[in-house]
């Protein structure tokens, strides 16, 4: 294979000039999805972990069953259920909404497990001190336990967020016009693979800062030990 063919197929600037609005549109959709799903998934996960810490037996039994269930289901399967299943059940949700529901539930199961480990790392005396001043159990969790718990598991939370952002590319399968999907569309227009290379570069630029942050957090946690 000579260089000219490689350049034409993978590094074709004319193709980029032709399709970059599509890629930007896809990138924007991915950003919107992440900005919605990361806080939602984290908040739901933290809520699950908080309720779990109240140690109400039947509630915890239910929570563990739910979390196990959603951790066992591949995200793509869940995605197909919500995107094609919710309308069948009579819920008129747009694709974005259905994708959001799937990723929120899936990521909440993982965030929840991480936050739970964080909560368990906090000495019982913290909760007792807070409750002894009259704080309710939600207040005590919110102001005293969770801030410390989240700090203790910051590397795991960051790592999970990284995985989650990458996993949003799965939504291309159900035709949500996010980055990877738009890359495939663009590829079809220009008949070469350059748009996919561009997609990879965009993911890299988006995630690399997070990867750096992660290794800094990990070093900090190691140093604190």
């Amino acid at each position, binding site marked *: 294979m000579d260089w000219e063919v490689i350049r034409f197929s993978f590094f074709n600037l004319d193709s980029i000039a032709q399709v970059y609005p599509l890629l930007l549109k896809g990138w924007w959709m991915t950003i919107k999805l992440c900005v919605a799903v990361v806080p939602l998934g984290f908040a739901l996960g933290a809520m699950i972990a908080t309720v779990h810490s109240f140690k109400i037996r039947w509630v915890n039994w239910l929570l563990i069953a739910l979390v196990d269930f959603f951790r066992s289901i591949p995200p793509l399967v869940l995605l197909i259920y919500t995107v094609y299943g919710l309308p069948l059940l009579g819920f008129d949700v747009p694709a974005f909404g259905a994708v959001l529901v799937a990723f929120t539930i899936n990521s909440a199961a993982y965030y929840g497990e991480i936050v739970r480990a964080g909560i368990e790392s906090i*000495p019982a*005396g913290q909760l*007792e*001190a807070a409750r*002894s*001043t*009259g*704080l309710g159990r939600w207040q005590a969790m919110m102001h005293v336990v969770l801030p410390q718990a989240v700090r203790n598991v910051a590397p795991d939370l960051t790592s999970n967020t990284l995985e989650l952002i990458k996993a949003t590319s799965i939504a291309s399968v159900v035709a949500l016009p996010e980055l990877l999907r738009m890359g495939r569309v663009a590829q079809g227009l220009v008949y070469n693979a350059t748009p996919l290379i561009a997609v990879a570069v965009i993911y890299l630029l988006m995630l690399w800062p997070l990867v750096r942050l992660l290794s800094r957090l990990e070093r900090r946690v190691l140093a604190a030990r």
Partner: protein
Amino acid sequence: MNRQQPIVDAQNIEKSFGDLKVLFGVDLQVAPQELVFIIGPSGSGKSTLLRCCNLLEQPTAGTIHIMGEEITAKGVDINQVRQRIGMVFQSFNLYPHMSALGNVALALRKVKKIPRTEAEALAHEALRRVGLSHKASSFPNELSGGQQQRVAIARAIAMEPEVILFDEPTSALDPELVGSVLEVMRELRASGMTMVVVSHEMRFAAEAADRVLFMDQGLIVEQGTPEQVFNNTQHDRTRSFLSRVSGN
């Protein structure tokens, strides 16, 4: 309000942890402005009794009244009750992610719903009372053990409780830091605060307590003024405990 009404009135308190019974029917009355000292060997149930008073432990049987209100009754708003019962712990339990001021102000803001600036002014005043105005913005890991415990006392007194429970407040401190904490407790006593103290500081008990309770194996064995309990001891178990802690 009836001046004679006890602040704390615990009747026939029993407590079991699973199969392990640690309290076998204990009565504890604490009068307004009284300082009650509870002594006894470890495992005697004295900390458990103290923790029952604000329901950090739920008694298995018995009733507790705080200022005449039965807190062991069903449907009591325990958060409401706990505002009026301060607690100081052996291991301080300061919130490490908040400054000293933040530690003291948190419950003022979130429980008493006092606006931030006003709550911080009250927190400053509480820190001043324990001699730590200058440490308001320090974080717990920047403070000595004695200073941390004084912040914890400020956290309790800022809520203006009717009574403060002290659970071995000096046991985790280096000997040279104990004095500063006892000094703060002495001043609280002088200001008329009602206090229940579980501690091994016998000299402090002798000097400051109105009443000393000796507990062993989940029961109150003997009680009276410090003079009675320390110098006119009635029970062998008390005598042997006292000789062990004084090292004679």
